């Protein structure tokens, strides 16, 4: 992997983290003193992906605009890495008319047809949809791939089973990515899943399954690259479980009392400083490079937020628009 690509990985991860940090700050900024989930410029549930950037970045290194991703309730890192327009995505999160969904969707429902990006707040239910996108690609004879991303909690939902079975049966170009961040809200992995790795579940459908430890963007990229190549070559689906980390609460406002000592351990596994140290040690990055990456990211995020804030809120008289096509 060449230096430029590795620096690109770093910058993309910083960009995503900066986005999540900024949204987090703004989300909480106007909800005090009596913290109210429905108050402020960004109301509602907010699931941020700090710690999971390597998954999105490693995966999207291999995707084109016309490949598809179907994400879960925690979608920002995937959307940004995929190339979804940050301005319009932010406007959506702020519930504005220039948002991806004209303010109708919100942060769990980001749809960008240009990037074939979508997501859903219902656990695992995006997986069959990705199978259908892959079906469309294969019927059209393109070499596009569809990726479904879901958490390790989601891997126990029936839709997981049906989606993997169908994808294998029809040999479709799908990559199933399980982001194992050890938690499903407050439920630890071993209270939801009787086996240590979801990789063997691939065998239940005759598809290769692999678990990737370490939350390292380069290792992840390699594995995703193989899976994408396999799919593009018409060899069918792959299941990848990526062990990653949830640095923050399940959603904003989650005090995480249930995590206890594990939280500190998790925090020590933040993949960005780890990758940064690695690139520094190899001489690819220095203080200036780090500062530039952060400044560039912050400028882009600030511009996106300014764009969002400048966009009007939807007019109540348009409430019934878009119910039917």
């Amino acid at each position, binding site marked *: 992997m060449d230096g430029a690509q590795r620096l690109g990985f770093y910058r993309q991860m910083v960009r995503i983290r900066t986005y999540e940090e900024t949204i987090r700050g703004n989300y909480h900024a106007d909800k005090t003193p009596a913290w109210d989930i429905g108050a402020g410029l960004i109301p509602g549930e907010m699931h941020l992906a700090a710690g999971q950037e390597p998954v999105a970045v490693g995966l999207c290194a291999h995707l084109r605009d016309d490949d*598809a991703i*179907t994400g879960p309730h925690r979608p920002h890192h995937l959307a940004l890495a995929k190339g979804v327009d940050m301005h319009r995505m932010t406007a959506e999160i702020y519930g504005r008319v220039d*948002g*991806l*969904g*004209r*303010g*109708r*969707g*919100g942060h769990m*429902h980001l*749809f*960008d*047809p240009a990037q*074939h990006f*979508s997501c*859903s707040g*219902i656990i695992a*239910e995006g*997986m*069959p*949809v*990705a*199978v*259908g*996108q*892959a*079906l*469309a*690609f294969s*019927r*059209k004879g393109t070499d596009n791939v*569809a990726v479904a991303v879901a958490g390790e909690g989601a891997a126990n939902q*029936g*839709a997981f*089973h*049906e*989606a993997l*079975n*169908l994808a294998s*049966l029809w040999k479709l170009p799908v990559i199933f990515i399980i982001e194992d961040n050890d938690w499903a809200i407050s439920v630890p992995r071993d209270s939801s899943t009787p086996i240590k790795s979801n990789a063997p579940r691939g065998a239940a459908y005759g598809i290769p399954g692999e678990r990737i430890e370490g939350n390292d963007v380069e290792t992840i990229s390699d594995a995703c690259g193989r899976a994408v190549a396999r799919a593009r070559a018409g060899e069918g689906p792959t299941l990848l479980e990526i062990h990653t980390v949830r640095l923050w609460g399940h959603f904003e406002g989650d005090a995480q009392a249930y995590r206890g000592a594990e939280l500190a351990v998790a925090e020590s596994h933040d993949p960005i400083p780890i990758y940064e140290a690695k690139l520094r040690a190899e001489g690819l990055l220095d203080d200036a490079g780090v500062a530039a990456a952060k400044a560039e990211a912050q400028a882009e995020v600030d511009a996106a937020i300014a764009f969002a804030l400048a966009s009007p809120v939807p007019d109540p008289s348009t409430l019934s*628009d*878009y*119910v*039917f*096509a």
Partner: protein
Amino acid sequence: MTVTETVAPSTRRLSTAKALSEGIAQEMERDDSVFVMGEDVGAYGGIFGSTGGLIDQFGPSRIIDTPISETGFIGAGIGAATEGLRPVVELMFVDFFGVCFDQIYNHMAKIHFESGGNVKVPMVLMMAVGGGYNDAAQHSQCLWASFAHMPGMKVVVPSNPYDAKGLMISAIRDDSPVVYMFHKGVMGLPWMAKNPRSIGPVPEDAYTVPIGKANVVHPGSDVTVVSLSMSVQHCQDVAEKLDGEGISAEVIDLRSVIPLDREAVLESVAKTGRLLVVDEDYKSFGLSGELAATIVEHDPTMLKAPFARVTYPDVPVPYARSLEQAALPTRERIEAAIRSLVRA
């Protein structure tokens, strides 16, 4: 457009099942992006004949038998539709919707809205509904209200072969998701008791029947009888019988539950002052209540007699014939209700 504008009347008679599958076939010929998926839609031709013969004409790449994975393949239909294809997906019995309703109402029906109109889901989800042949509690329901209650999908309910074909073609061409519910009793199947109305004239060319326009299938002036699907046939039979006795019932076939042609109902009740709803779905929290509300939020004085409904009671579908027949909206119950309404 309706057939009268585009196609010459036909004397060819088809069963509803044949008319419906002909509609699919003609759209498949016209548009490469149309394909069919579902359980037993291939060699079997659909358990209730909705895809009969299609596998011979189009082969297994366009008529796809699926595993028993409704969430999986309905979700796959949605994904394919968002990528520009036009899937016709069959859920074998509406009664199975509980294993896959999330895909239907949280995804198929909402994506267009959530995307602010940027993503379309042009998909037809067809399914068999209804009872009367002792298939018991898990295979005999209608449940159109369960779909209609959730915004974002059209719900189509043909009562005869002509409408079945025209509504199917409209449904496939529609850019919104359409739930297409065919009652087993209207299909005209050789192995099920049927009303002769389940076989009727169907033009050979493609034509559309507009989704959202009710049809006055029997004009009348004394009482308005609003119905849909299989029950329309019973209402027509009863109305014809009562004609001979000087009781003039206007029978309205809704043809779709969403959009609901409230105007057609209001117009007729304005004339008759009496409303009977005949509905094979469960009585409460459904279509019959919605039609009552439609009248009285407009003007309660329109009703010269109490509102009446002949529906499936709020009871799971029993197996025994003696019980099921007592529960169904039969001709006997309809006739009695009309008689008592005109007397009121």
